[in-house]
């Protein structure tokens, strides 16, 4: 969707300054209205003089009852207003799994293993090309079972990976927040491609001895956008239960999903998906507001499953040899763009400042009534958000979104660097990206963050957070040891 924002008037006037002025006036409209009123009131007071004002006051004949009633009414109305607001959801803190260097898969290892496991030379060449252009770095990690030749995807190994990533993340979170496991009221776990019996949520209940009247939910099969889906569910539950907190776990277990065949569209996940997990603590208690990092403003979910192409975009199936894998269609970028557009139409009015909304509205009206040839106006989301966390699904996804939303390199830096250092960790990647921004010392109080996730189905989910306190670097987390080296220059093709 590349296009100039407005029809071409550049010959007549300096467009940039006009736009700036328009933006300033519309966004601060109330101030512009208010200031003249205040000034005139003050002038009136000064003109009348203090004696006149005193006599005005005396003529009111106020007595105790009137004052009491009016103040009572005011207090009453304000109480009703505050009580009927939806409960605020605070993010106290979150922790991401920090993989051990022993699990690293540098390019050389990956290619060597691939050459030994894969029988088809063409597949090996294809995977080499993918890895060269993937945007991944040399420090991404695979679980221990995948380091075997061939990988050993047993149920026991899958459970071991789940325990490793989830328990580390929760232990880190407990250390950071002082959370007592017995205090957890709601538990939501999302892991797309591994759901053993008993569920991962039951595994967490067992390990941390959570209470028996806990509300637990185990979501599965919902793709890389399931993290934001879980946040949405936790938010709804926190509206219903006052004074509670919720633990949300987002992860993807890689062990059972190694694709053994030769179909190209199914080999991509082998190259891109890596180990990761995130544990997030949410609360709706007012006393947690002072120690929370973020407050949840909006979550918007879009599901394009009704459309055939979108539905088949990310599809798990068996190839002709009976090997199970996830095929990614060539239309992925176009469909992601479409899903994002739908999501934006809902979230735009909620977050964009008035100036952008008016511009969009005027262009729309203009296209309908005056001239259909006007290019549609793409609202400038940089006005609404300071930071962007785009799901690190792959280099192409980040490129596409950067183009669609007209973002600068710095805005997508968190996504690109997360892809480089951790690979595609599926639903937890958004949290690694947020941690990057914090580790770089860029997160200030009042900043707004937009997290966008895409997943099979085809879903596009986004969440908007507002930062409540400036996060001082250095930050405890997966980026601790390597943040000084970032950002790195990621070449188009890494020659292997």
């Amino acid at each position, binding site marked *: 969707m590349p296009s100039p924002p407005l029809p071409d008037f550049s010959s007549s006037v300096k467009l940039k300054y006009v736009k700036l002025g328009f933006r300033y006036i519309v966004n601060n409209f109330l101030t512009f209205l208010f200031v003249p009123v205040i000034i005139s009131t003050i002038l009136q007071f000064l003109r009348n003089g203090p004696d006149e004002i005193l006599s005005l006051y005396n003529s009111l004949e106020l007595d105790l009852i*009137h004052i009491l*009633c009016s103040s009572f*009414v005011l207090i009453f*109305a304000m109480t*009703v207003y505050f009580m*009927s607001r939806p409960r605020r959801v605070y993010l106290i803190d979150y922790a991401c799994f920090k993989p051990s260097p022993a699990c690293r898969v540098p390019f050389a290892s990956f290619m060597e293993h691939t050459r030994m496991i894969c029988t088809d030379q063409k597949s090996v060449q294809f995977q080499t090309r993918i890895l060269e252009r993937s945007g991944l770095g040399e420090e991404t990690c695979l679980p221990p079972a995948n380091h075997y030749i061939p990988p050993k995807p*047993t*149920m026991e190994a899958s459970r071991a990976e789940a325990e490793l990533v989830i328990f580390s993340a929760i232990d880190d979170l407990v250390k950071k927040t002082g959370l007592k496991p017995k205090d957890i009221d709601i538990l939501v776990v999302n892991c*797309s*491609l591994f*759901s*053993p*019996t*008993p*569920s*991962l*949520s*039951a*595994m967490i*209940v*067992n390990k941390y*001895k959570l*209470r*028996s*009247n806990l*509300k*637990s*939910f*185990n*979501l*599965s*099969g*919902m*793709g890389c956008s399931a993290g934001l*889906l879980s946040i*949405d*569910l936790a938010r709804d*539950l926190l*509206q*219903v239960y006052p004074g509670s907190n919720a633990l949300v776990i987002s992860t993807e277990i890689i062990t059972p999903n190694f694709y053994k065949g030769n179909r190209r569209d199914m080999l991509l996940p082998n190259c891109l998906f890596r180990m990761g997990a995130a544990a997030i603590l949410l609360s709706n208690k007012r006393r947690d507001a002072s120690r929370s990092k973020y407050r949840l403003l909006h979550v918007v*979910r*879009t*599901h*394009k*499953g*009704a459309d*055939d192409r979108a*539905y088949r975009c*990310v*599809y*798990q199936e*068996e190839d002709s040899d009976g090997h*199970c894998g*996830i095929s990614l269609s060539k239309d992925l970028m176009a469909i992601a763009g479409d899903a994002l557009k*739908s999501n934006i139409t*809902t979230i735009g009015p909620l977050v964009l400042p008035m100036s952008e909304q008016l511009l969009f509205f005027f262009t729309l009206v203009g296209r309908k009534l005056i001239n259909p040839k006007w290019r549609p106006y793409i609202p400038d989301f940089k006005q609404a958000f300071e930071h962007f966390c785009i799901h690190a699904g792959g280099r192409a996804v980040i490129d596409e979104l950067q183009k669609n939303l007209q973002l600068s390199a710095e805005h997508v830096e968190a996504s690109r660097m997360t892809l480089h250092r951790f690979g595609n960790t599926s639903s937890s990647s958004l949290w690694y990206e947020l941690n990057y921004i914090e580790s770089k010392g860029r997160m200030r109080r009042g900043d707004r963050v937009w997290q966008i996730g895409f997943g*099979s*189905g*085809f*879903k596009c989910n986004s969440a908007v957070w507002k930062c409540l306190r400036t996060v001082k670097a250095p930050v405890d987390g997966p980026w601790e040891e390597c943040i000084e080296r970032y950002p790195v220059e990621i070449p188009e093709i890494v020659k292997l």
Partner: protein
Amino acid sequence: MELLAILTTLLLLYPLYIIIYKSFKHKYSTNCYLVDYVCFKPSADRKITTQMAGEIMERNETLGLSEYKFLLKVIVSSGIGEETYGPRNIIDGREESATLNDAIGEMDEFINTSVGELFAKTGISPCDVDVLVVNVSTFSPAPSIASRIIHRYGMRDDVKSFNLSAMGCSATLIAIDLVNNIFKLGKKTLAVVVTSESISPNWYSGNNKSMMLGNCLFRSGGSVMLLTNDPAMRARAKMRLKCLIRTHIGSYDDAYNCAVQKEDDAGRVGVHLSKELPKAVVRAFKENLKRLAPKILPVRELVAYMYYTIKRKVIKPARKANVAINFRSGVDHFCLHTGGTAVIDAIGTALGLNQYDVEPARMTLHRWGNTSASSIWYVLAYMEAKKRLRKGDGVLMLSFGSGLKCNSCMWIVNRDLEDLDVWEDCIKHYPPQTLINPYIKKFGWINENTEETFDREERRKSIRKVPVN
């Protein structure tokens, strides 16, 4: 000053009006109504008879005599009849090499019929659905089954879908809990809950006794429910949710390890059921009852219980007999999870139920087998078909699941219910005169054989000679 007084009064009344209006609206628009539900009846070519079950068991090469005996004992005492349904790949002989397409096909057969049936029955269009919750415990492909339904029926793009997985046989009540919580937000919502179980990919092909029970007991089934919190649909709703209690005792190691999916010594995946299962179930049940009883029993029953407990503990401490609560004072009908005859009997005894109360669960087990999470809906359908559900009756649903969870909920019947639905063709034959298991007749020979005399080949030949009923 008159004006000021009037103005003050008006300003005072306005927030008061807002508060009263909001609390009424909240009270009326946060009820969970069950508008209707549909149970899945697989096609007749998927029926598994006594003979077929025996043959399927025989196909497992790894079974020795003691395992075979154990299996037949389980089948004989399971309470399952001749008309239960199984997945196609098992009937076709491919139980050990199930493909992804088999599992998806099994789900598709259910989704393509039952969900459409529900929409047709209630007159709702798929575009009106706001929330979709799917729970299928043992199978979660990508895209999820929720996405499959959205795709198949063309639902809106802002539908809230949730795909719950691995939450065991009690997951249907977890799905209802999720929907109920969304209803409490106050906005008018229409929700569809889809419950089923996937049997195709979960056949255990080894010979570990603790893992073979799943093979014998689980059968194909599913149900789809339509729920809403819209007061306008109250008149057509079948039932209203009164309360829902969830208990999770996974913090106890023995309870957590009761039902675990893992590999046996030969590397074959199956669900291991430990010997501690009955004890753990009882503990979970007690925990759940502790929280459920105060909500569903009438006050006099609770007071009587307190009086007798105090009397027993303080006044006459020698008395050993446990004071029993009469649950039938607060509940008229009991939907028990059809986990097996032993489970139903145990719960029946614990709750002090008589034959009439456990009949629906027993008959459901006989006709449909253990359809896992959806079984309580078949039990409910039986009660409805037998015209037992009258306006104002209380229905208690109780189910257990891996983890270990015990979930229960209480519905109040909204109007006299008479739908025959899935029991239409056979309700006249229930309850049958005898429940003698035909397996006993056919497989009683196993007790006469020993390891030496048991000859697999001979047995196979004789199976083929027996005529099909």
